[in-house]
Structures are given as C-alpha cells and as structure tokens.
C-alpha cells in the first residue's frame, strides 16, 4: 500500500490572554491509501485540533506534515452546515465554486453522486426539506465534490440520535469505500471507531501524545453494523476502553 500522509512530531499550543494551552504534545502517525483511520481520545484532548491543522484551518506550532504526490484533503464537520439559502446542488458545489468557475464535468460528477446516493429528487430542493440522514449524505457529497484523496470526518455523526448514527455511519462507510477514498475520522465513540476502521489511534489526555495504534482485524470483515457482532469487536473495545481510562 502507498503511504499518502505522514504526520510527525506534531505540536500545538493555543494562546489565550490568561494562559497557554498545550493541546498536542507529540503526535506521530502515517496514513496509507484507502485506509480508514479513527482517532479516539478523552474529551478535550485535541482530537479535532489534528484535523483542523491537517486542512489548514489553524496553524501548527511545530512538527511536520507530509502529504505525498499532491493529494487533496477535504474536511467534513460535526455539523452538516448546509447553507439554508442555497439548494442542495449549489450547496454541494460550494467547494468547487471557491476554487474557480465550475466545469460542466464537475457539475455532472456531483449530480451523479447525488443521484447515486438517494438524493435524486432533492437536487433543486432546499436543505430544510431533507431528513437528518439526507443532510449528512449531502454534506458528504459536498466534501467529495472537490475530489479529495483524504477525507477528514470530525465527529461527523455525533449530532444524531443513536439509531440514525448507526445507519448513517453505515451509509458514510459505504460511500467512502465505494468512492475508494482514504478517511481519517475523529470520534468519541469507541464502538464507532472499531466498527468502521482499519486502524484506531488512541490519544492520551491533554497534552496529547499517541498512546497506541491498533490494527483492527475482524474474523469476517463486513459493514460497520455487522462488524459490531464480530467476536473480535468486544476484545478491541475492552482494550481501548482500558487504554482510555488509564
């Protein structure tokens, strides 16, 4: 497998008037093409900070991020953030619009994605007519529209109730695998991380370092919901749970 991203000695300090907060102390990991990676850690440990640095929303304090052969990164937020004053298609095209005039081929690509993933009847509707799951899919398609190689998912499903979470986790997983993307997901849900990922990175509490990286291997690799029934699932769950509570 080709290595496409390498993060080494990543450090982040936040400065406020009163204090400086050491968020990330020493973060090292690499990502291979087509992998699904999850990052878990105690709340407030700086999981999301890693993603924000990776997509240039904030600056790192020091360290190195190498992105091999011009791979593109796109970010999917916790909140779907669909703009209420634009229709679904325009919402999905917004990332492309930022980059310049939209080519017809790009537009077709997005329309095809919308059709492929159950939003065919909503292309020209406004986001308020979408259900929670549809909104999430729409947000994912907006992220896919710029044809990124790596997707960053920041608690992408945490705003939803448990049942929808499982369902949409399933959807998102399938779409990402279908489109052959690499994904890095931040979550506080251990089960979600294990059931969806090839590797799980466990962070320590703040200032965060990488505590452990687990290769997840199931007896019968399937979709996230089925993976939860795998005998290895609870084994991983226990180990990571212990890791987090040490």
């Amino acid at each position: 497998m080709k290595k496409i991203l390498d993060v080494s000695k990543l450090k982040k300090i936040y400065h406020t008037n009163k204090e400086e907060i050491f968020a990330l102390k020493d973060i090292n990991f690499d990502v291979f093409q087509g992998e699904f990676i999850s990052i878990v850690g105690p709340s407030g440990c700086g999981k999301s900070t890693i993603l924000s640095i990776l997509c240039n929303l904030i600056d790192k304090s020091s360290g190195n991020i190498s992105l091999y052969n011009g791979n593109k990164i796109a970010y999917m937020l916790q909140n779907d953030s669909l703009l209420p004053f634009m229709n679904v298609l325009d919402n999905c095209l917004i990332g492309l619009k930022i980059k310049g005039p939209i080519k017809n081929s790009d537009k077709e690509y997005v329309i095809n994605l919308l059709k492929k993933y159950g939003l065919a009847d909503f292309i020209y509707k406004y986001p308020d007519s979408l259900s929670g799951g549809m909104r999430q899919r729409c947000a994912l398609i907006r992220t896919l529209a710029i044809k990124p190689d790596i997707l960053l998912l920041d608690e992408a499903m945490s705003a939803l109730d448990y049942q929808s979470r499982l369902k949409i986790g399933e959807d998102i997983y399938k779409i990402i695998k279908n489109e052959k993307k690499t994904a890095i997901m931040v979550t506080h849900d251990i089960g979600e991380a294990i059931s969806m990922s090839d590797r799980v990175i466990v962070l320590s509490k703040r200032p965060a370092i990488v505590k452990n990286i687990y290769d997840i291997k199931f007896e019968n690799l399937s979709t996230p919901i089925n993976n939860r029934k795998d005998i290895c699932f609870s084994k991983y769950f226990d180990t990571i749970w212990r890791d987090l509570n040490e």
Partner: protein
Amino acid sequence: MNDYSYEHINYLKKIKWNNFFVLITRLFIIILFLSLWELFARTGFINTFLYSSPSIIIKTLYRLSITGELLKHLNITLFELTISFFLSTILGITIATIFWSCNFIHKVFDPYITVLNSLPKVALGPLIIIWFGASTNSIIFMSLLISVFITIINVYHGFNSTNENYITMIKSFGATKWQVFRYVVFPSNINNIISTLKINISMNLIGIIMGELLVSKKGIGYLIMYGSQVFNIDLVITCIFILGIISYIMYYLINKISR
C-alpha cells in the same frame, strides 16, 4: 390541489376567517375613532380651532392638492427621504462590511460610533445649518446622521454573529475572506439587513422632518412649522396625517420587496 381532507379545509377556513376578523376589527377601530372625533367636533364638545376634525382635514387636504402646494412639499420630503435612505443604507452596509473584514478598524472606531449614535442629533441641527446652509443638503445630512450609525451597528452585529459552522465549513475549502463574505456572511444576513432597513426608513423620516422643521423652507416638516406659527392647527394635523400615510406606504414597500 383539492385533495385536502374535510378537517384541513375547515382549518384553512378558520385561518381565513381569523384574518378577516383582524381586518374588520382594525377598520372598526379607525372608523370609530374618526366618527367620534367628527361627532364631538360637530356637537361642539371639542374646539375645532384647537383639535380640528376629520372633515376639516379632508377639506384642507383637498385645498392643498388643488393649489398644487401639497404635491410641491410632498415631492420635496419624499425626495429627501429617498436620497437619505439610500445613502445611509449604502454607507451603513459598506462601513459594516469594512468593520467585519478588518478587526483593527472596528476596534479603533467602535467607541466613536457608539458615542455618535447616542448623541442626540437634534442638538447638532443648528451647527449643521450653519455649516451646510439652510438647504436640502443640511436636511439630508441630518437624516443621514440619525440613521447611519444605527445601521452600521445593527448590520455589523449581524455579520459578526453569522453561524460559525458555516464559516468553518467554507474556510475548510480554502475560501478567502471575500469569499466567506460573499457566499456565507452576506446571504445569511439578508433578513437582518431588511429589518434594519425597516428601522432605517422611520429613522430617516424622523431626520427629514426634524431638518425641515429647523431649516423651515419647504417640505411637510416646514408646513407643520408654518401651520403652528400661524396657529393653523388644521394644517398641522393634516400634515401629520400625511406623514402617517407616508410611513405606512414605505413600510409596505419594504415588506413587498423583502418577499
């Protein structure tokens, strides 16, 4: 379209009736008020020299319109109102945009704007007339002063409280500051801007009338001043009635445009 259930049709009917009832009650109140006023005036219960009466107002209105005086003064007031409304809107939104885009400038000017906004502008009236002359310029300037600071404050506040998630989302695609403004901040603030315009139009009208009262050359405000000086209460009340109609029409127009 007509596949609604019996209950739903009933529900719609009920809403229709409700709206109709509101309208009827409104009309009833104004008719009651006007007829009592007229009745009291005719029976000598109130002194028409001091309180006028609806029929006298209509007569005054008629007299003013056939002599062409009404149109002349109304035109001037409306002209001044339009100019100052557009100027303060454009100026206010532009300055708010500059404030939003450059935090340094906002921090520097924020206290000045706050002080200028709370300063009673009528106190500046005499100064403005000395500096700009007793002319339309002074009146428009005064109206501008009254409305522009509140526009800046309201619009800036709206820009600044745009949903952070939207901004993060678009920034993650690498949007520039201008693109953040164009695709997210401005369109999310359309409603806020329209409600600011609604406040603006009445602020501008206050400014214009105040200016006309002070400058006292032409316009509805001048007519009110003139009327009070020659103790022509009919004229004063007629002018106030006209102002009421102007505000209603302006409000109606902005509502229409905002839809």
